């Protein structure tokens, strides 16, 4: 078969993208200026990803992009083409069991109004993946990218500590 020569790329206002979100593959045509946060919320109906400041400061819109915590308001949906996105909707198990991080936030009362919570859970997920046993100082440092106006963070730090402990335990049981 003759090798197909790649076309020279051209500027466009719309693109076809394929993104895997929480294990489901979505194929869609999107305007290039559509933010990933708006794509998740408006196009896919995953409204768990919240939108606060829309310029990368508040942390509410944090999602995992190929496992890395990123601000979904600071990238375009078209940039996620071919990538794997995990949102808060992808955290609980199939029979709606809460993820250990979610469970810990519930038990430790790590939230009040809950607006910032999805972003915090996703950030904590990335944090604990990289550092399963963080010190309180490390927890506080990594949480600095998420703003919560209700709790005063005390219970959030406790929730993260508990979640870390349980995830480590879970990991040991697997091994």
């Amino acid at each position: 078969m003759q090798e197909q020569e790649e076309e020279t790329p051209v500027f466009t206002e719309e693109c076809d993208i394929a993104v895997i979100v929480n294990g489901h593959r979505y194929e869609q045509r999107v305007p290039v200026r559509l933010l990933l946060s708006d794509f998740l919320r408006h196009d896919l109906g995953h409204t768990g990803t919240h939108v606060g400041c829309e310029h990368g400061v508040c942390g509410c819109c944090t999602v995992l992009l190929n496992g890395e915590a990123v601000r979904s308001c600071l990238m375009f949906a078209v940039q996620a083409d071919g990538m794997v996105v995990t949102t808060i909707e992808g955290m609980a198990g199939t029979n709606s069991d809460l993820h250990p991080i979610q469970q810990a936030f519930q038990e430790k009362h790590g939230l009040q109004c809950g607006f910032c919570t999805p972003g915090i859970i996703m950030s904590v997920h990335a944090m604990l993946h990289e550092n399963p046993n963080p010190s309180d100082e490390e927890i506080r440092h990594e949480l600095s990218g998420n703003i919560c106006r209700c709790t005063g963070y005390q219970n959030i730090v406790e929730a993260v500590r508990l979640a870390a402990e349980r995830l480590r335990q879970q990991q040991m049981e697997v091994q």
Partner: protein
Amino acid sequence: MKPPRFQYCAPRILDEALTLLDQNREDTKVLAGGQSLVPLLNMRLAGPAYLVDINRISELNYIESEDGYLAVGAIVRQRQVERSALVQEKHPLLVELVKHIGHMQIRGRGTIVGSIAHADPAAELPALLTCLNGEVLAQSSHGERVIKAEEFFTGYLSTALEPGEMLTEARFPWIAPKAGWAFMEFARRSGDYALVGVAAVLTPTINDRCLSAQIAYLGIAGSPVRGHAIEDVLVGTTLDEPTLDAAAELARTLVSDDMSDVHATVEYRGVLTTELTKRVLRAAWERRGH
């Protein structure tokens, strides 16, 4: 909030990107990590007609040890540098400094070179590049050139880059094995842009005097400021307290008169500059080899 309309292209090859940049030279922006550009678009403070997204150009994704410097390609994320065993071992000052940039969610996407190209006066990397006598590589479809840090940053959010050019690499010179180094900044909240920051590298002589000094500041003028006069004061000394006081007083005079804003007055920036100068110089000297 919606960014204004623009035309977008995400080439996979550098040559294609350079061609695209050449097509509409005056009204095209390069999109790398987007952690500064996308907020500007969201708030409609910027509205380029064309965006060239370089994130898929894998040939720009490299961290390499070169003769004389560490080379970082244009799409290397700040987190990548933070985690790189090579950088941790061979350029610890860069790792230390990068940790001060934004939050981990910002560094996961933000690039080293993008921060330099954006040239925010309060950003860490432009100050480091200035401190180290670093260089950047600028390429266009008509060729390439190497630009020294002190010639690259020309003012507030302004650089020596010409329309049609883009930065493809940043070069951070190695620090001499016995040199001590430090970076400190003062920000009102963790992850905020700093009000003032200082990077310093001090090399000792065999009899433990200062052989050479390099010091640069962020947040005290429209672009990073190299403290040449301070360096002259330090060379030949043992960095005793009177020398540090003299250096700190000189540092205060480097704060530009127009640096009063809602975050800090010129006077307050002056106080921060003097104190940070002393602390950074002490910390760097403490870290020197014998």
